[in-house]
């Protein structure tokens, strides 16, 4: 009886898998790889919901030249080796037309390698390590700016307002963190800021006090951190505990703009600055509508990661509409000719420095003011005036 059951189960599974590839005729399938479980699931969730929201709108508006668009989501669990096999599965088994998604830089890099090898176009929407578009991989396109450009807005804020003399850099020792910290160090050198502490750390630590003690000892004017969300919360809480009082704390996007950051860090999140790539009040068509619709549909906040994903979905749709055929090379050609406006800003893939197929966008500076994320720089776009100088004793009371 048990054996029979086993056989029946196996047959059932076979049927399920076999059936999956049969009904592909009138839908256009695109693979999206995101961290849906695991340590980076927060980001993956915001992006997946945004992809789904865009997909519904695209199909409701008639799809791609009469055909329905379909996204096949795969979970990379935040691990490069899983991301790699997810990409291989989507390309060889599901025969997707192109790939999208890519959250963590290490995972994105792994997916990009597979996509290039198989000559399948891949539109990266978040993975921001500079080297992803510096490999000469002509099938890889990136919607968001590379991590080295995240602090562009911060740079002008520092030269015009803060004028710090010393800085500490704390970063997660991954592709994303290391590459971001090197670039920020270069900026510091350019601005004549002395880097007094530069420390990497392993993601998921319980106690960050050892490195924070070093920061406190050097008492820098500026503390710049590149972290995912839970590390960001713990770093700020423990910095508050140790009473580290630089002129300002700045996060390098990622964890510092998520709604989970103030939820977990509490008052330690208050008045912290962060670089960001997008804010809902920016004058891009549909930006505010996207924000409102997301909040109304899912009853939670969204931020730049969601906007990236939403915009990426529209870029994918636009590309498939313009592509002469569904062959990877025609899609690649259409993607490279993209020139459109999205909620995330204008999208056009260009080559500069060592990068190819890279979209170029300005970045912004936000600050947590009274529990809300406010755009504070550049000044002419600000939703609230920045709070500086900051009296930490009053903020942390």
């Amino acid at each position, binding site marked *: 009886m048990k054996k029979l059951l086993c056989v029946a189960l196996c047959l059932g599974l076979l049927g399920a898998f076999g059936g999956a590839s049969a009904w592909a005729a009138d839908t256009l399938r695109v693979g999206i790889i995101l961290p849906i479980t695991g340590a980076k699931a927060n980001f993956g969730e915001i992006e997946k919901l945004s992809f789904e929201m865009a997909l519904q709108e695209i199909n409701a508006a008639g799809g791609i030249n009469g055909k329905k668009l379909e996204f096949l989501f795969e979970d990379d669990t935040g691990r490069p080796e899983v991301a790699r096999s997810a990409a291989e599965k989507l390309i060889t088994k599901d025969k997707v037309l192109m790939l999208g998604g890519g959250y963590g830089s290490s995972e994105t890099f792994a997916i990009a390698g597979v996509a290039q090898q198989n000559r399948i176009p891949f539109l990266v929407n978040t993975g921001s390590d500079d080297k992803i578009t510096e490999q000469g991989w002509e099938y890889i396109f990136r919607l968001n700016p590379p991590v080295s450009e995240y602090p562009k807005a911060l740079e002008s804020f520092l030269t015009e307002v803060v004028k710090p003399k010393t800085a500490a850099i704390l970063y997660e020792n991954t592709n994303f963190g290391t590459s971001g910290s090197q670039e920020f160090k270069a900026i510091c050198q350019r601005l004549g800021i002395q880097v007094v502490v530069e*420390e990497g*750390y*392993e993601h998921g630590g319980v106690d960050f006090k050892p490195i924070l003690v070093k920061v406190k000892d050097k008492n820098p004017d500026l503390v710049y951190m590149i972290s995912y969300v839970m590390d960001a*919360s713990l770093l700020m809480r423990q910095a508050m505990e140790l009473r580290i009082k630089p002129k300002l704390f700045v996060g390098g996007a990622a964890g510092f703009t998520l709604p989970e950051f103030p939820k977990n860090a509490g008052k*330690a999140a208050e008045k912290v600055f962060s670089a960001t790539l997008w804010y809902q009040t920016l004058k891009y068509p549909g930006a505010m509508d996207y924000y409102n619709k997301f909040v109304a549909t899912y009853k939670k906040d969204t931020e730049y990661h969601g906007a990236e994903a939403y915009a990426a979905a529209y870029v994918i749709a636009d590309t498939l509409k313009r592509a002469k055929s569904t062959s990877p090379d025609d899609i690649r050609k259409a993607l490279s000719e993209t020139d459109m406006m999205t909620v995330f800003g204008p999208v056009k893939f260009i080559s500069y420095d060592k990068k190819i197929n890279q979209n170029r966008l300005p970045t912004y500076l936000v600050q947590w003011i009274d529990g809300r994320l406010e755009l504070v720089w550049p000044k002419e776009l600000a939703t609230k005036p920045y709070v500086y100088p900051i009296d930490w004793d009053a903020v942390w009371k």
Partner: protein
Amino acid sequence: MAVFIQTVVAGILMGGIYALIGIGMTLIMGVMKIINLAHGQLMMVAMYITYVLYEYVHLDPYAALLITMPCLFILGAVLQRSLLNPLIKVESILPENQVLMTVGIGMVLTELARMIFHSDYKSVRPPYTSMSLYAGSIAFNLPMVIAFGIAVLLTIGLFLFLLKTDVGKSVRATAQNKEAALLLGVNAERITIFTYGLGAALVAAAGTLLLPIYYLFPDLGGAFTLKAFVITILGGLGSTVGAIVGGVVLGVSESLGATYISMALKDAVGMVIFLLVLIFLPGGLKRLTKI
């Protein structure tokens, strides 16, 4: 100097929690002669119970200790009785296969947690979590100090229990020599069930104490199983005093390593000590303390 003192303080406080995690594993190791590779996952279960109690019943995490410890005791005892003990009875199955069973238990617990709570990060933040005591420029994080204090109390309680009570003596007897204990009328099977429950309850306490400081997600268990394993080896397999010393040594050396070498190599520091102990002190710190 302040840097050094703050580093050591942070290390010792963390070491207290590490010790509590390690003791449970070491007890199980002593009696059953197996490494319980579901240890961190049991801790994760206790943390989810604490989280649910805080979120829906608004029960303070420290009060939740009174619930999580008995719950995990029962869970541990049931696991031992219905999953681990039956393996001993089948002759063709090597006793080592109990270890594999614990790996399986760990995986199932993780995936169950993911099914119920998803992968989101959860945290428990009563108002006192960000409070600190200050001695000069040295900060003592309040929940960490409380956790350390409770860990010490629980350890003392455990020692009294092992030294003074009949059941405690039976546990030690079984750990020392199972055959002799059997001959003297100790019900070894019941003792193994009891010990696994006790080990689970101790790690539950560690989890509940850690939650106000840290955060919670289904995959958290693995990292702490590894920590517990290192502590158990450091301390000398099966030695409770060794586990306490091992926990504090690990906490302080991680902390010092992070300050003076690099935080990115924090886990490597723990592993290097682990290797050094294996090479130069194969019996673990037990060899030094003789207990």
